[in-house]
């Protein structure tokens, strides 16, 4: 996943790291061979890291398990909320885990605003309906906008992830689950957003930094926009660089211009500006430096004003 290499090459490189060069040299295809060799050069610099990265790649099933468990807990919460809506507050109060209890209560407050809708989405029966009659769902989805579809689909998997009510133009996503959400957007068979068209940052009145992702699906030919807001004091957004490889450079550019830190980005450096540039130029409160490497930056050209 990390370096985007074929599994075959990774296998070859791993075996070569163990000393088995013959398997690479025996390769017929020149292209693959040279790629494998190049990967080997890279890998030999830090074999441990390579092994860790790429063997971890294969045991990605663990991650899936984790999400499943979190999914389960969400289902649990939904269950409790449904009970609460029916007036059974005792069972909620009886939850021993404080965190879960508070979560349930928060969800309950939200749900009470529109209890019918919440019931519709979360009652076990409805979920099974969606699963069983997929063709029917497709027909409905075709009529509604793709953003609404994402919102509805996401409720089951990532409840509370879409923050905005009106999703005509964009989806406002909770930054904490963004990475998993992005993987889901890319891999879900209904969505398949395989192409990140544009990623950029915004400075909203000097208080909030916003990252916007324009996603497109080459196979489904649909398009959406995702926005993530973070406070300007602590601008941290999970990096999706390993989901869409182009996000690597896009995020570097956004970091360069806005100072949004993309956590878990492997190589977060300035991209367009020099390494030692001060400040984040596209923030609204940016001021041009007085000097750069001892060179005074002229504000106004001589003999003009």
């Amino acid at each position, binding site marked *: 996943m990390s370096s985007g290499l074929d599994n075959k090459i990774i296998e070859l490189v791993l075996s070569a790291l163990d000393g088995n060069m013959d398997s690479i040299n025996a390769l017929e295809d020149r292209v693959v061979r040279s790629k494998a060799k190049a990967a080997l050069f890279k890998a030999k610099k830090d074999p441990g890291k390579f092994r860790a990265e790429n063997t971890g790649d294969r045991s990605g099933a663990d991650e899936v398990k984790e999400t499943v468990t979190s999914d389960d807990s969400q289902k649990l919460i939904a269950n409790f909320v449904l009970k609460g809506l029916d007036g059974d507050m005792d069972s909620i109060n009886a939850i021993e885990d404080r965190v879960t209890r508070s979560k349930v209560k928060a969800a309950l407050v939200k749900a009470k605003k529109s209890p019918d809708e919440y019931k519709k989405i979360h009652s076990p029966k409805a979920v099974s309906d969606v699963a069983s009659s997929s063709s029917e769902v497709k027909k409905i989805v075709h009529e509604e906008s793709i953003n609404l579809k994402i919102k509805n689909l996401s409720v089951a998997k990532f409840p509370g992830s879409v923050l905005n009510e009106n999703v005509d133009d964009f989806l406002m996503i909770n930054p904490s689950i963004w990475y998993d959400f992005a993987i889901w957007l890319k891999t879900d068979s209904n969505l398949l957003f395989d192409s990140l068209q544009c990623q950029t940052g915004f400075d909203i009145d000097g208080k909030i930094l916003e990252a916007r992702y324009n996603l497109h699906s080459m196979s489904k030919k649909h398009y959406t926009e995702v926005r993530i807001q973070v406070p300007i004091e602590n601008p941290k957004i999970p990096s999706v660089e390993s989901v869409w490889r182009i996000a690597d450079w896009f995020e570097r550019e956004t970091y360069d211009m806005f100072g949004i830190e993309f956590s878990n980005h492997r190589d977060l450096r300035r991209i367009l500006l020099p390494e030692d540039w001060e400040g984040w130029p596209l923030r609204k409160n940016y001021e041009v430096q007085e000097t750069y490497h001892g060179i005074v930056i002229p504000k106004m*050209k001589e*003999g*003009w*004003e």
Partner: protein
Amino acid sequence: MIKYFTDIWTSITTILGGMGITFIHLIRARQDNVTLQYPEERWPRPERNIGFDHDNYNVIRTRLHVDMDDCIGCLKCERACPVDCIKIVTEKAPERGSDIKEIKHVGVTTNGTRKAMVVTRFDIDMSECCYCNLCTYPCPEECIFMTGGPNSSRHPLDYEFSEPDRDNLIYKFAKSGTKEGLDKYIGEKSAES
């Protein structure tokens, strides 16, 4: 083995084919020649005929020129400039639409507009100009334009305007001494009355 020989064969044929094409160019050098002997032969103006009398109609983008007699000091060009290379300073004329001979100020433009302003400074920094032509469109008097083009009888095609000093590229169109002359003129006027 067959591939070995077909490779050799395609190499020979394609390279000979390419050499044939270049040879045709070689012998047709006189007809095909597209270059100009620059200092003697200039790049010709493209034939542009827009179908009506176009004395002031200008598309050629060479250097900017201002007809100061027509300039009313409306600052539209200054505002239109995306790189802020135009700088205009105006003073209120003592009398709208009248000539001031002392500073060679012409009161009425060729379009018949009576000027309310005297332009004391009109600088264009040609080293910053991006030749976007944006300043020429809003001008109500059509007094700022790019030289060359259909009206080149007045302003010959010129794309060589190198200067030994950068400062020489700041074109000063306002007539020299306008500011002092105007102050003096107003002073005299007020003294008279």
